[in-house]
């Protein structure tokens, strides 16, 4: 992929990546910064970029990774999050069906579980789509989602720091 392609990538995929960052981060300014940073990372690794057919998946992964780290950094340095309610064992299924609640606790999970959990439970990607965005096998996604689901209650009960 040539240097000239970066400008065309930015024009073609910028709107979609911005929309994605806006969805994850919740405000225009953060989304704009995240989009810029995503394409700066694309620029630094342009020689590793896949062909145009996989470009969306690749840039999507970079953007999601950046945004999830940003969400985590906000949590570590900023005002306390809303309290996560106490959950009993019977309510774990309810938790996994509650997108808003999951979005609040997913960054408390270990790093390797954070992206698959967010993509699947919050973003609504199915397992194949998660595998594709992350560049891993579907089996790996299944294992990580199972581990997240099994420990969701524990993650919810972790303190914010």
């Amino acid at each position, binding site marked *: 992929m040539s*240097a*000239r392609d*970066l*400008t*065309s990538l*930015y*024009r*073609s*995929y*910028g*709107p*979609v990546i*911005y*929309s*994605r960052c*806006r*969805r994850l981060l919740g405000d*225009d300014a953060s*989304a*704009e910064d995240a*989009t*810029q940073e995503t*394409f700066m990372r694309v*620029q630094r690794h342009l020689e590793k970029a896949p062909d145009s057919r996989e470009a*969306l998946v690749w840039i*999507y992964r970079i953007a999601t990774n950046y945004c999830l780290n940003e969400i985590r950094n906000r949590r570590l340095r900023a005002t306390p999050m809303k309290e996560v309610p106490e959950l009993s064992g019977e309510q774990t299924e309810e938790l996994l069906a509650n997108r808003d609640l999951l979005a609040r606790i997913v960054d408390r999970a270990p790093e390797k579980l954070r992206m698959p959990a967010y*993509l699947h439970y919050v*973003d*609504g*990607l*199915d*397992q*194949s*789509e998660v595998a594709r*965005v992350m560049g891993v096998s579907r089996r790996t996604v299944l294992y990580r989602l199972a581990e997240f689901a099994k420990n969701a209650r524990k993650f919810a009960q972790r303190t914010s720091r």
Partner: protein
Amino acid sequence: MSEDRAHVSSFTLDAMALGALSSEEAEQVRAHLSNCARCAADFEEATAARDHFARDVLPRTARRFRRIEEPRRFSLRILPMLLAPSLAAAVVAIFVLPSLYRRQDSAQLPGQDSRPPILGQDLRIKGEPILRAAARRGDRTLVVQDGAVLAPGDEVHFFVQASGFEYLLIASVDADGNATVYFPYGGAQSALLQPTEGEQLPGSIVLDESRGPERVYAFFSHGPLPSAAVLAELRGLAARGPTAIRAQRTLSISADAQSSIWFEKRVGRRDAGGQSRPGE
């Protein structure tokens, strides 16, 4: 649609916005959106964000990624000897009339987008880029302005003033839902051209028997645009009906500038010379 989900994922919606889904997949998604309030709301929110980026963020920030290179260039030359005198006159009319209009502070050029000039661009030629058209019917030539009534068999030629933009993509949509890339014909992305005032684009289109409005969009940019995203937007526009085609002057595509024209295709009586004349 997700294999194990009742809703459409944001990834699938984004892929559809990029024109990366097959027509069957896109149709499935659209059918779901029309029946699912949650996904429809997600889609609307994502569309608004994309529009905001294309309109307000991209013009400010694109230069950061721009590299100066030696592009491949091919030149579109006006070949006056191949133009019939009436078409040559139409070319003059097309580009003289707008320059007269420019002297008026509030005049709106027919078919020209009313947005303010693109910010952050170093235009080498002043003025906004423009798409114009002329139609040949037998031995007559008509300047096509918005709402012009044309007939099957009319031969439509396109002219652009690129105003410093290096890339051009022209595509159209009609009321039957046919979305076509006219320049580069059937191409997968914008073509690089050498901007010169009043360029006539090679070739022409001959109108078919379908009726109703057809709108032709020109997308001007400093980098190539993929056709897939444009075609997806055009099909979405067609799905909203003929009124939308007549009214939608620009699309939410990340081009630096757009210009469009629409005309009404009608089948009318045949005159004594056997030429079809559109009904009123």
